[in-house]
């Protein structure tokens, strides 16, 4: 009881005594765990390596400059592959993830008991596995190359698109749907007129945002052989060709900045 009566006056505190003690205990336990964790980590660290980290980093840096600009000629094509992996993967994810979103949303699913849990399961499994791991699996199944990359990106993105879309569908204004229903519209028409216009901004935002993320993710899938610039990155690192690594980093950086600029423009135009 935060309100107590002492000699005729009403006193007020946010928490009563038990709440106060509970709060202090929580802080105490939290601090103890943090201290214990630091102990554990420092015990398992080889500090000699850490202490000369600045030297090592400086050494690496000197070996990375100047960038070998002539290497650029060799990465235009893998860079183009990378962008294509991201774009096609995103498109595939949108095509497959959008119906999934409608099946998973409580207010549009054909069956809450059967279809919805199944759709949610697909969404969760897609989301729980990183693109890089999808790529590892797909390279084993499809063999190395761009196709494995596209599917890896798509499989990871289906869950993302499906989840964000079904959340958007569940948040729509039902009175608009009711109004369309009341005109005698068919269920398909109610979907097209009452629901789709309401989720268009979310849909556009999700698609462009995921494309933006996928540009970054597709630079990595090549590390395991799924096509794109990651392949060049990996071979450059393993042959200790650091000036080439620098060129690849700069190329990725410029691509990501360009994609962010483009996606911001697209989002602005649609919403």
């Amino acid at each position, binding site marked *: 009881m935060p309100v107590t009566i002492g000699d005729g006056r009403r006193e007020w505190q946010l928490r009563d005594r038990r709440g106060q003690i509970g709060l202090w205990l929580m802080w105490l336990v939290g601090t103890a765990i943090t201290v214990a964790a630091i102990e554990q980590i420092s015990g398992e660290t080889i500090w000699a390596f850490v202490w000369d980290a600045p030297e090592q980093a400086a050494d690496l840096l000197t070996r990375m400059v100047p960038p070998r600009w002539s290497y650029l000629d060799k990465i235009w094509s893998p860079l183009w592959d990378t962008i294509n992996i991201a774009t096609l993967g995103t498109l595939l994810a949108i095509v497959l993830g959008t119906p999934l979103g409608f099946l998973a949303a409580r207010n549009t699913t054909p069956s809450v008991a059967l279809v919805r849990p199944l759709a949610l399961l697909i969404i969760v499994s897609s989301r729980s596995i990183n693109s890089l791991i999808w790529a590892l699996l797909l390279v084993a199944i499809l063999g190395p190359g761009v196709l494995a990359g596209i599917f890896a990106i798509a499989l990871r993105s289906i869950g993302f698109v499906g989840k964000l879309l079904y959340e958007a569908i569940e948040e729509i204004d039902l009175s*608009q749907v*009711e109004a369309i229903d009341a*005109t005698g519209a068919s269920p398909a028409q109610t979907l*097209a007129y009452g629901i789709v216009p309401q989720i268009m901004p979310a849909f556009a935002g999700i698609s462009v945002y995921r494309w933006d993320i996928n540009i970054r993710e597709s630079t990595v899938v090549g590390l395991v052989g799924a096509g794109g610039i990651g392949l060049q990155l990996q071979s450059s690192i393993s042959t200790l060709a650091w000036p080439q690594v620098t060129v690849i980093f700069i190329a990725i950086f410029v691509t990501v900045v360009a994609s962010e600029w483009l996606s911001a423009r697209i989002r602005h135009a649609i919403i």
Partner: protein
Amino acid sequence: MLLIEGLTKQYKTGDRALRGVDLTVPQGQVAALIGPSGAGKSTLLRCVNRLVEPTAGKIALDGVEITGLGRRALRRARRQMGMIFQEYALVERLTVMENVLSGRLGYVGFWRSFFRRFPAPAIDEAFRLLDRVGLAEFVDKRADALSGGQRQRVGIARALIQDPAILLIDEPTASLDPKTSRQIMRLIRELCAERRLPAIINLHDVGLAISFAERIIGLRQGVIVFDGPPERLTPAVLTEIYGEEDWSALIRAASEDGEAEGAGETAAAAGQRQTGFQGSDARARLT
């Protein structure tokens, strides 16, 4: 004509919103449904087009029994019932024209509606209705760019393009200022008179009900406790519907106002009201 017999609605939560309501609304009659919040006004209205499924009772519109229709037949029946909503319930991101044409969805196939290829007569009618409610130059505006009064006019046009046999109107003025409320109520009454349309209007504003309806139905806890012309709405009756309060001033003001509105009706028949009304609306838009 709308016929309701023994209409009962019990929600899953156990609330009994309607307890055996009997009601007949003849051709061309504008009836206001008043009562405190939770009296079942909205439920009654929504039972008529079965947005809410009645528990028991019978509802028939022009001889067609609504209760007991299958999904497909219900959709056909809903085309006959225009509904106007409290918060307008327009599809905010669609244009005014798309919103008005959505009233024709029950009459066109999916792909035609999907690609917005509505038949020419429907589009002509949409233009005519937009002219009539004073929104001719807003055709291509998006609904969310309009003011409250303008949105409700779109809502009215959407209901009328259905070519309905009855209007179901749920708190049309709840989110409008007093002046716009009166304009909207006047528009609804004029349109009902023009087309000899019956209408049931839920109103929480008793003053508006007295001024603009020819019949008042008082609902309390799912039971009709008053049914009659506005003149018979005495302080005692209002006390029975809403509970103890000093009602005399409200009734006096509203009935004087109602007489003024009644006098205006003859002018409307001569077609003068319409132009005067649109003129004042244009001024309202400029300010």
